């Protein structure tokens, strides 16, 4: 009745050395090479101006790359205009047609492809059910809420059963609660359809929750491509680490076979080469927990943030400030000004270079 019509061979994407510049100035994309597997939920993550949206637009055909090539499903996309690509986009502003109601918006793509009216109606109905807007079909788009608009934009793209669906920050205009809800829904929908999704966002938590793999972009270049866990736990460089929300960076002075000398003292363990040590807040242990790991030192609590499930402590260790996050399991907390014992090991840390 509904789902079967949408099941379709998803398509892989290959981006090879794509460069794109606007007017004069720095390139928006600088020799970007990327592979997206068929059926993957792939996220382009980065700050504004990093080139993620430009890359998405190159995939959609809305921008022509200056050099390099793009293949979708093994077919070169050179010179293929957007309306001849089996790729659809959910735009950041949703771009719903103001002169058409919900049903007419969803049916637009099929109408342009010359699909018979009865089939348009059937497929629109099915996709509307799937995206949870089955009862809104005759509404004016001006009457819809933000979340509903987002669903209409999604349905309007999905109904065409594209090989690849592109999503340009589709959740950024929504409030936090709705956003979390739609993240889950979108993820489930993608798995159910088995379609390749390329998702653009600047929100690293959103990227981690939703993606199979994440590409972090910085100034037009790919900084790292990995699974959410890989990007978070083993960031390729300081930029990626900062962007993923890390703040505990300890400069490394010297490294030898048994450990490293750092700004907070000697740490024993097996550390890779690099200029900085990254300590994840949840891997910094306090008090009795600290005694289970080899490297311990004293620090003063300068700030305490209670977050329900966890408590965050800002710790002064000499010149260095560290953020520690402790699960609240009923143990007594620490007050500001208290001195606590801190422990770190080579697990939960990573070494980085600029």
């Amino acid at each position, binding site marked *: 009745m509904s789902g079967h019509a949408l099941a379709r061979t998803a398509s892989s994407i290959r981006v090879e050395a794509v460069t794109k510049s606007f007017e004069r100035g720095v390139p928006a994309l600088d020799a970007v090479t990327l592979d997206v597997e068929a059926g993957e939920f792939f996220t382009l993550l980065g700050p504004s101006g990093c080139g993620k949206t430009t890359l998405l637009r190159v995939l959609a055909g809305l921008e022509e790359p200056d050099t390099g090539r793009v293949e979708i499903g093994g077919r070169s996309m050179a010179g293929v205009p957007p*309306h001849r690509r089996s790729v659809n986009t959910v735009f950041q502003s949703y771009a719903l047609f103001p*002169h058409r109601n919900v049903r*007419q918006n969803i049916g637009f793509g099929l109408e*342009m*492809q010359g699909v018979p009216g*009865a089939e348009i109606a059937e497929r629109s109905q099915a996709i509307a059910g799937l995206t949870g807007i089955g009862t809104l079909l005759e509404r004016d788009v*001006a009457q819809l809420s933000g979340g509903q608009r987002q669903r209409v934009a999604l349905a309007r793209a999905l109904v065409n059963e594209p090989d690849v669906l592109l999503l340009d920050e589709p959740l950024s205009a929504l409030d936090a609660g709705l956003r979390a809800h739609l993240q889950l829904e979108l993820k489930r929908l993608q798995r159910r359809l088995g379609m390749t999704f390329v998702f653009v966002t600047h929100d690293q938590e959103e990227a981690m929750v939703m993606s199979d793999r994440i590409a972090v972009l910085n100034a037009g270049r790919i900084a790292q491509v990995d699974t959410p866990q890989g990007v978070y736990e083993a960031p390729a460089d300081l930029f990626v680490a900062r962007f993923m929300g890390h703040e505990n960076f300890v400069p490394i002075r010297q490294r030898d076979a048994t450990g490293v000398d750092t700004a907070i003292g000697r740490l024993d363990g097996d550390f890779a080469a690099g200029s900085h040590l990254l300590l994840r807040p949840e891997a910094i242990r306090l008090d009795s927990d600290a005694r289970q790991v080899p490297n311990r030192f004293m620090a003063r609590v300068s700030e305490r943030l209670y977050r329900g499930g966890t408590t965050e402590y800002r710790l002064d260790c000499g010149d260095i400030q560290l953020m520690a996050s402790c699960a609240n399991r009923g143990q007594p907390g620490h007050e500001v000004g208290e001195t606590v014992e801190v422990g770190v090991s080579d697990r939960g840390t990573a070494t980085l270079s600029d």
Partner: protein
Amino acid sequence: MSAGRLENGLRAFWIVLLVFLYAPLAVVVFFSFNSINSSARFAGFSLQWYEQLFRNEAIVAALTNTVVLAMVSTIIAVIIGGLLGYGFYRYRLGRLSWLVWLIYLPVIMPDIVFGIAEMTFFVAINERLGILSPGLGTMVIAHVTFQVPFVALLVNARLLSLDPQLFEACHDLYAGPWQRARFFLLPVLRPAILSSFLLALTLSIDDFVISFFTAGPQSTTLPIYIWSAIKKGVTPEVNAIATLMIGSVFLVAFFSLLVQHGPSGGRPSKGGRRA
């Protein structure tokens, strides 16, 4: 308390303003039915001036000229101006970008300067090339010239108010160039095209000066006829012609109300095929 007084004061002001706005028109209509030749004393109801009017061939010809001038110039201006407004929005003009400023020329140019510029130009061309002799043709050209910028500005403003991603969404959803024009651009611009049609029409109807300077002996319009008649003093016949023109303007106003409140926004059209 004082808010209520302000409210009452404003309402009274509004009524006085309406009287100010409509009294001159009402007086014209009223005295067009006067049985004597006076605009100070109403002696009785009569249609004699209207009878005279329709027996006067010059007036009937002027009426025809007025309608032809307004309709022809407006249609041409909406097409040319609409394309111009779209072109300015859609394409990078590069070295031609100064053209955009030309649009503002008729806006800052007083009617009278515009009128004499057109007139002297037509005369000069006519002397040398024998074309563009003064008449309906030159009047249409002059009217289109001052209508085009207003149409272009309205259409352009509507396009600028649209989400630019709409154009890309169209492209992304398999619409080719002609489909984009037919299924997106025209429906989305419909309100702007309609209002620019009405604006161009009223600009043409309102104009006297430019028509006056570009008209030829055979292309007298009603305002020009009235002008020369008043120079001999206001007669009830003039009031009768004016009443006809006021009536037609109210008709246009009525249509514009329909355009605003009628099926414009997001009405379901035949695109909404149901299985």
